[in-house]
């Protein structure tokens, strides 16, 4: 039966779980904003 819940996954790169990848990506995006690389992001 297909699993319908939100899942925990691992990604092969660096053997990090999806949770940690989310933290890494989130922090990276924030760093790019703080450095001015990402600014005036349209929304």
């Amino acid at each position, binding site marked *: 039966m297909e699993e*319908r*819940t*939100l*899942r*925990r*996954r691992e990604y092969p790169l660096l053997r990090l*779980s*999806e*949770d*940690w*990848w*989310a*933290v890494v*990506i*989130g*922090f990276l*995006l*924030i760093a790019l*904003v*703080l450095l001015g690389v*990402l*600014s*005036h*992001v*349209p*929304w």
Partner: protein
Amino acid sequence: MADTASAIGERGRRVYWGIASAALLVLLAVAANRLAAVSPKALEYPLWAAVLGLVANVIASGLKVKDKLGAVIRTELFLKVGLVLLGAAVNITEVLSVGVRGLVQALVLVTTVFFFTWWLGGVLQLEKKLRAVMCAAVSICGVSAAIAAAGSILAKKEHLAYVTAMVIITALPLMVLMPWIAAAAGMPPQWAGAWFGGNIDTTAAVVGAGAIYGEEAVRIASIVKMAQNALIGVVAFLLALYWVAREERVGGERPSARVLWDRFPKFVLGFIVVSVLASAGAFTKAQVKDITALRNWAFTLAFIGIGWDLALGEFRKIGLRPLAVYLAATVFNTVLALGVSWVLFGR
């Protein structure tokens, strides 16, 4: 030689479908953003994103390309990235700078409404995970709280979609009704704003209701809502702990600290770290605005994924009992918020 050619061909096909999948995702995200911009304030982007994802789901399934075209759709990853970024919008210092009343109201309302909804959901025998997502949504602040709760306890995607739809659909009439009732009752702006902020389940609808009623109401409504939003991290953290320690217990044994750590959703820690940074003044207003925009894009992608993965049969299984619980909890929240906001802001 034939094997090498086949491997290259297979890789080429994966790259092709990956690019097509990414292009589809970007197209749907931009479309959801445009639709949200032109529609009534309370019909927010998660609803549009989920609808567009569902439409793409149906078309791709019909054309039998759904598996290939879904190559880069990573619903959970997008949700969690969005949740980490959400921390930037939670600034405890800003909430406290206007006095402690907003925080007191938030604590009273969130705790009471959460446990009332949990109890009522139990009486009507709702699935526990659906109950938890709904409790977070109705007691705190709607969609973001539902996402945080769903991520913390690994709820079903249909639970999140169902609760999100209820949040957005009930926010629209409340946005119109509450200012009308407040005006008819001659409520002063501070009391009215505190009532709106403590009750309406989406931030946009709160600001909308406040704007209908006046500047002072907008100010108070926004602060009260921010105070409630500040509790997202706390609730997500506690829910995650409770779920790992009690609901996911195996064989009745108490899980060890190692097991608790392994199962604990780490993105909640990311959210808390970013929130602490925001509270310490690490971000300028412009930077918070950019981070908020990135967060909205992340959630847009996530809700497209939810629509993409939706199984309508699961909604039929969920039925209408959750809707009854949600509506009853909203009425309870409305009446309680009226009383609490009168005590703290109306006298």
